[in-house]
């Protein structure tokens, strides 16, 4: 019997002794607690999301910046909107953003979904290794991946271009500084996210429908197309939505490659508006409002897609074990293809990083380069600098944020998908809306917000965690919502009928069933909170610097060679951690991958 079913059964058995409600005092009545938590959630989201949004919308309607006396007056203007919409730059950036986001989403989804399906649902060899490398890859900062690809496919110095020239005599075959190059680099950056989003869903899929399909003669491909993918529709929709919005919001690739490619995106325009002196808060807020509108339209589309949530419920009170599809002879080519993808997204950048980390200054591969190799970039990481405090801060921020975010999104997902409480859909909208706030605007908003609100959080880790809570809610929510949608309501209803108090039902039944999604969300938030830079930088003071800020230091002083050394060490450390956790999990019989 699965742990899911056991948990549910335990709850039922306990309530055989008699309905708990009859013994409870009115204050502790389960319906009241459900309402109290619901109201608290609303309060939290209003504070964490609605207030920053109000500030952004307010700023977009103001021609003076925050801090000016007129900023708080009730005089509004559409001047920022007319400035933005009247400029050709806005429409060019919007078009470029749509093209960039659509194509990178599509590419990341195809690659990530295939790997997730192959690793989780088929009997291909090395599935566990592929999954592990996907997860380990997430820790490498995006900026390093971008630089690695610049060194690989830059027109004059790219290693791949050198290879093509030497073999085929074609000069500068690849040009990473192009829309195509930007799409490729960003798409492979998002493949692990796609994998994480879909793997949990694939893992929780009831195999009986697939077995039925196979029994009536449908092949693997047809079963995948007609059964598996439709069953994973909420996860697929969420993945597409998140990938698209992440692409709209992304910053590293447009910043490092877009300028040279001559491709400006909305985030580039926002960055430019906030890089001037004085900062053009009004214009950057206006661009944020445009991005918010785009995201709300997408979210509405997503909700329409998954409005019949009960269709995707595959986890019931009955035990099941997801079936592995036998690919026969195809399992080797599929495995090889997955390994190739892993090599592209993890192996190649890692090799480039390792190579660059050993050089005193960057040179293309050659005798001179190999002769000049040194470990100085590694040794300089640990000499005379304050490395440990920021690392500890990042650890605390990562773990703290991830834990809190996961608790909050589990509750939100429960209310949205398993109750009929009035306004529950608004919870989902609120929690998701913050995805439209670019990091640079989010950081500035939180800084201003807590300057105006005299709470003693400036300069502490708490202010960073609060900002991250807003930033990562949408991502974590989609992870957990997918898993929640797969849980049949009958479990919750059975617990209620049996008189199991609401809190006990949530903790003992729902949370264990949500474990794959919760763990995926926790891991994703933890890693991203650990490596996030923009917000951390804007809120950093002397005592709350994080590892990402340290990375920027290296970037500023030692260029990407020292940063590469740092990336190699980070990757090695994480790989060891993942390996140890796997070993421990296996020893204790835990099957979850995260």
């Amino acid at each position: 019997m699965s742990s899911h079913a056991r948990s549910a059964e335990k709850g039922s058995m306990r309530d055989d002794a008699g309905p708990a409600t009859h013994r409870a005092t009115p204050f502790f009545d389960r319906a009241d607690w459900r309402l109290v938590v619901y109201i608290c959630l609303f309060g939290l989201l209003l504070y964490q999301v609605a207030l920053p949004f109000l500030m952004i919308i307010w700023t977009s309607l103001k021609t003076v910046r925050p801090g000016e006396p007129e900023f708080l007056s009730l005089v509004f203007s559409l001047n920022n909107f007319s400035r933005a919409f009247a400029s050709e730059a806005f429409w060019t950036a919007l078009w470029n953003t749509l093209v960039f986001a659509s194509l990178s989403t599509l590419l990341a989804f195809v690659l990530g979904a295939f790997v997730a399906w192959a690793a989780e649902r088929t009997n291909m060899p090395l599935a566990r290794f592929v999954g592990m490398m996907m997860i380990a890859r997430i820790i490498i900062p995006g900026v390093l991946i971008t630089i690695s690809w610049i060194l690989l496919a830059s027109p004059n110095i790219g290693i791949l271009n050198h290879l093509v020239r030497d073999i085929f005599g074609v000069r500068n075959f690849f040009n990473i500084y192009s829309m195509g190059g930007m799409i490729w680099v960003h798409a492979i950056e998002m493949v692990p996210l796609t994998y994480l989003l879909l793997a949990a869903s694939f893992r929780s899929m009831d195999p009986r429908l697939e077995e039925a399909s196979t029994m009536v003669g449908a092949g693997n491909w047809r079963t995948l197309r007609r059964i598996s993918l439709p069953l994973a529709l909420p996860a697929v929709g969420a993945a597409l939505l998140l990938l698209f919005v992440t692409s709209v919001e992304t910053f590293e690739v447009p910043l490092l490659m877009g300028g040279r490619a001559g491709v400006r995106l909305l985030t580039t325009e926002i960055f430019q508006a906030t890089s001037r002196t004085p900062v053009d808060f009004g214009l950057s807020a206006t661009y944020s409002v445009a991005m918010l509108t785009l995201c709300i339209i997408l979210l509405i589309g997503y909700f329409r897609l998954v409005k019949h949530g009960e269709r995707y419920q595959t986890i019931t009170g009955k035990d099941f074990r997801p079936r592995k599809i036998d690919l026969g002879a195809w399992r080797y080519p599929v495995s090889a293809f997955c390994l190739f993808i892993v090599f592209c997204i993890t192996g190649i950048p890692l090799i480039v990083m390792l190579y660059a980390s050993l050089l005193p200054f960057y040179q293309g591969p050659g005798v001179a380069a190999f002769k000049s190799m040194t470990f100085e970039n590694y040794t300089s990481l640990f000499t005379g600098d304050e490395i440990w405090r920021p690392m500890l801060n990042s650890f605390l921020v990562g773990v703290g944020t991830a834990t809190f975010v996961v608790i909050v999104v589990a509750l939100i997902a429960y209310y949205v998908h398993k109750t009929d409480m009035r306004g529950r859909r608004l919870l989902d909208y609120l929690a998701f809306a913050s995805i439209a706030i670019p990091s640079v605007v989010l950081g500035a908003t939180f800084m201003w917000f807590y300057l105006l609100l005299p709470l003693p959080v400036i300069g502490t880790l708490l202010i960073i965690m609060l900002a991250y809570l807003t930033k990562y809610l949408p991502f974590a929510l989609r992870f957990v919502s997918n898993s929640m949608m797969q849980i049949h309501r009958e479990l919750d209803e059975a617990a209620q009928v049996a008189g199991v108090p609401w809190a006990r039902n949530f903790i003992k039944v729902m949370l264990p069933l949500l474990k794959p999604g919760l763990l995926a969300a926790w891991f994703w938030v933890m890693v991203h909170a650990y490596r996030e830079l923009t917000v951390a930088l804007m809120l950093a003071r002397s005592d709350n610097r994080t590892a990402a800020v340290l990375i920027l230091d290296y970037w500023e002083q030692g260029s990407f060679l020292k940063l590469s050394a740092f990336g190699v060490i980070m990757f090695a450390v994480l790989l060891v951690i993942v390996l140890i956790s796997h070993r421990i999990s296996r020893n204790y019989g835990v099957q979850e991958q995260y």
Partner: protein
Amino acid sequence: MLRSIIAAGCLLIGAATLTVAQQTAELSPAEKIYAELAKLSPEEREKRLVDGARKEGRVVIVHTLRGELGRSHLAIFRKKYPFLNVEATTDIGSQDAGERLFAEATSGRNLTDVISVSLTDLSEVLRRNYIARNPTPATTAVLPQMQKYNDPQGRWALFFWSEHGMSYNSNMVPKDKAPKQWEDLCDPFFKGSVSFDPAEARFIAGLYAIMGEERLMKFMECIGKNNPIIQRGHTQRIELMLAGDHMVQGDNYLYHGLSIKRKQPSAPYEMVFSAPIVAGMGASAINRTTQYPYAAALYVDWTLTKESQEFIASRLRGPVTIKHPYLPDDITLVEAADPPKEVADRLMEAWLRLVERKR
């Protein structure tokens, strides 16, 4: 001897002075202390500062010599005054430092005592009278040719400067083809092989000081036609150029390439000294409502001491009281100061239109 051409630099100082003249606001508590301290001999002043700072025990500094450089600089200060708890932010740039003080001051929070910034990033906080007047005898140590950048009212104390100039990959550019003047970057030989960061107000202001508006417009037009590389990241561009990605840095800090070349003499790096070099002046300024006036002033004075200035020179940045560590004496320096706002807007728009978006 450094030969300086000053054009727009005077505008900044003039405008700032005018603004102060208009603001007859009464002195803040910190400014009253500074006015008293200004009457003392340097020795007595230092003693009073140390005693006062010892009582205060704390100071919050935003240091825009970033990362390890700023921390190492402050480590010397901490070592000299171990009784002070120096809380420092060394991760943000000059503009953000100005923004931070601005944000804190407008919201009535006193969280930062001293910022070190480029003079061009001080204008907004000066205009709003957020900076304390702290006339200090320490500024007398500044080299004569740099004195003009100091504020007679003591609202900032110059203590370093950084340079933007041209450099090139000597493996890709033969000596006879090397650029001599800024306009040489328009040579078709360099087509598609000259790199710049995206629009930087400071750099454009420097070019304006060198060329004036009309010549600068023509320069931007011909640069745009020569298909420049626009890529963010000064250090990254240097690395890429040394790797053979392109020939010339149209705008970059010269010291970074030099520090690589000193470690690795085979690095193909050459600097151009025949064209004027844009100098960005860096200064420290005290929050007008600082909670730790003695410690703040002690730090500002300390930045001009021999040990502080020698440290700056040892890291190839420009000191202001001693000779520059590597720039020849006969170069032409031009201070990057704010042109009038309408001119600055026009130039920025032209850069975006002619250079960045043209491609």
